[in-house]
């Protein structure tokens, strides 16, 4: 059951976006999805089914931590927070991603001329 959005994202992209979002503020799962959707102007559709496994991965690697809390609509939700290790990891990921993006952009630009 792989959808196109996930297939198009490179490995690690979902985690990177989760970490980036959580860097701004702690969020619960549903809010995370909504936030990513909103900020990307609906360009990126997060497969909600793959969100939780990704979150579990991050939890296990101690890049995020989670605790139960209450949402704005008064529901019991699990709120995820970035850890120090998570912040460092994000920095590394982003810089390497930017390098890669730059490379890709250059290749694409060259191809046009």
């Amino acid at each position, binding site marked *: *059951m792989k959808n196109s959005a996930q297939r198009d994202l490179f490995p690690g992209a979902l985690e990177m976006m989760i970490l980036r979002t959580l860097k701004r503020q702690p969020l*619960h799962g549903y809010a995370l999805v909504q936030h990513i959707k909103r900020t990307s102007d609906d360009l990126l559709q997060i*497969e*909600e*089914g793959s969100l*939780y*496994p990704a979150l579990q*991965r991050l939890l296990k690697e101690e890049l995020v931590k989670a605790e139960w809390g209450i*949402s704005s609509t008064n529901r019991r939700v699990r709120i995820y927070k970035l850890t120090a290790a998570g912040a460092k990891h994000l920095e590394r990921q982003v810089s390497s991603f930017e390098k890669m993006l730059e490379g890709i952009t250059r290749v694409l630009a060259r191809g046009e001329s």
Partner: protein
Amino acid sequence: MRRLRAWLFRLAGQLHKGAADRELTAELESHLKLHIEDNLRAGMNAEQARRQALIKLGGIEQTKESYRDRKGLPMLETLLQDLRFAARMLRKNLGVTAIVVVTLALGVGANTAIFGLVNGLLLQRLPVPAAEEIAALVIKSGDSSLGALGFSYPQFVEFREQTAPICEVFGSATAWRLNFTAERHSDTLTIGGVSSNYFSALGVKPALGRLVLPGEGEHPGEPAILVLSYSFWQRRFGGDPRVIGKQVRVGGKPATIVGVMEKEFRGQFTVFEMDAYAPLSTAFDDSRASNFWNSRDIHMMLVLGRLKPGVTLAQAQSRFDVISRRLAAQYPVTDKDLSVRVMDERLSRPIPYANNAFIVFSGLFLILGALVLLLACTNILNILMARASVRQREMAIRAALGGARYRLIRQMLTETMLTALLGGIAGVTLGAGLNHLASSTHLLDIPVRLGFGFDWRVFAYALAVVVFTAIAAGLSPALRASRADVNTVLHQGGRPDAGGKARHKVRGDLMGAQVAGSLMLLIVAGLFVRSLRAVEHMDIGFDPNQLLNVRLDPSVSNFSETQTKEFYRSLETRVRALPGVESVSLASAVPVAYMLGKQSIYIEGRPVPPGQKAPEVLFNSVDAPYFETLRIRILLGRAFTDADSESSPRVAIVNETMAKHFWPNGSPIGKRFSLTGDAGPFAEVVGVARDGKYRVLAEDPQPYFYVPLTQDFAAQRTLQIRSAMPPDSLAPVVQHEIQALDANDPIEEIQTMKESLGGTLGYFIYRLGASLAAAMGLLGLLLAVVGVYGVVSYAATQRTQELGIRMALGASPRQILFLLLRQGAQLVAAGLLFGLAGAWLLTRVMSHMLVGVSPSDPVTYVSVAALLSSITLLACWIPARRARRVDPMVALRYE
């Protein structure tokens, strides 16, 4: 390190699955609710809101599944899942499970029992330190016609001295069935007479007291001492530690018990366990074996060597070759063509014969065991294939629901493996039980030990057998079932396994293979049984029925020669007067028992050329009524009479073979030969007796002669009584008479001639072979019948619809019966052909194991094939008959 930690987390996740699962479920629930609320706010109705939310989330179960795949150890988890499911399936199909388990238990049981035997006999090393250094030294000399299978004592000593730099040579000679008296009670013991360095070279320890010490007992006349084996100590003295220092009598001579052997060491021969050990001087004292110490012709020592560290068998071999050649040159008469083979001790078992058929024997029975296992496998395969086609629907649906093919195969294999393990456990238990039975039964006249060798090798073997079975029998049905196409299967309208033409063919092949395998087993069994019958009906030259043998040694009482003669004379008179006694006689040897006399003979007028050995011939000293008591016919001349006394001219009676061999032209009557030398004194041949069996049952006719006991004194004699009553009922009365004459109880042994013939040299080995082979044959037959029945009845059920159509179109029940029978018969016939060919090949190795029957004996082949084909056809006929009664209407509606 991180990987390891992740792995540990996963394992922990596995254990705390419940809690983590609940947490995830709660989280997903709340996610859904939030989403639904949003959707409601966006203006959807309740149902739409929920539906959209669910679609977005991609289904709670899938999410959980993909989360779980990361969390636990998927391998372990699916294995546990498979196992749980398999156990459930097995419980649900208890009948099928039971059949498979029992079938496999029989196959594995038979195999482990045989392998246990082979393991103990051939694979396990002696239980001594650094056992890999122990080599067997097998001697072969020019004259091995009389079964010279050991070293003479002088040869042993020479080899021990001359090979000392590379190897410590030690050995033992068995004293069979010596009388042992302790605490006023007599037993017959088999005693290992050991060289003084025997125990030190082996490196075994006493459980109690001491063993034979280096330098002890290698000269006749030293004080007699005895070391008990652990099991004899337990059996006879109840493990009493006070036996040390006890005064006992061995072979009538006083001896002291000095020690008890450690429990683990059960003798050098794996098969025979000695009751006790004694130095050579105790076991072979002057009165019993005066020539033992000097003669190069008495080959009693079975010799081993402990190679010095770093010395290879090949290096030792070349050293022994040099010494053998030197001795052959030094003693051209006795040591002609002498050679010694240095070999792995395990290959020389059970007795270091120069040509050991035992390995072939073991190999044959391992093959038979494998055949039984293959038959069992085939049956299981049949059952599993039938089950697999029933479960094809299930598999197709599982595949349609996204079950990966490898998971389905794994699931099926897990089921098979679980069943096979159950069968394996049952089988090993059965095998161990059989083995225990064999070890605790006192089978024989000598302490034979068959139960042993249940170590890791046996379990590894059993496990290999189980895994092999599970894969051989489980893989193909699993592959088939998993290949099922959901469309086809679901459209078959509930009729499993339609159009399985290929599958029918496979079943047919299996059935043919079963018939073939079972035929091979039965032919081998048939040959062994026929060989046993041939041996039992063999002309042994005398009538063994209604005979009682009482072996006596009055030297315990320190009788003089005159007193001994007087003792025997009055004993014979007394026993002859007992009611029911027909005839009584005395002899120094009993045919086909352990006591043998052998003599060099010198024919009058034909001096032995210098540098050559006089021919050696087996003989017996007997009294006048001997030929009447044993019913040995005198063909020419006369039997001995009371007139043949010490003072009368020396006489002898020869057998037919001896007469033909030494006096080929004309009658031997009146011819003379000497037992001492070319110069005489000579004994005159007065009669020719019928040939018989003397050493072993399977021997070729060989020369033999008799001399009167009056002219060749022997203290140890066997009283032989022919009676009208069952001979063993006479034993107590005879015992009473003997004790009345000699309070010291000189009886060494009482047994009927039939019992004596059942011993190792007699029928035992044939009976053992025949019963083992027969058991395997019957097992094979049973498995084949069940298999054939199963295949035919399954095929008949599968074809119910077709048969219904045939009947609706006018086929008579008779035609239906023949249709089914013809197919069965074709398969059976093909199986028989292959089986006959296989059996012919397999039995090539049996030629040395059979007596009086050829390995390609047509009677066995034809009768066994006929028997098997009728039984298997019957197994076809029963289900075929049932199928013919099918009601066409019912059959067509069966869809």
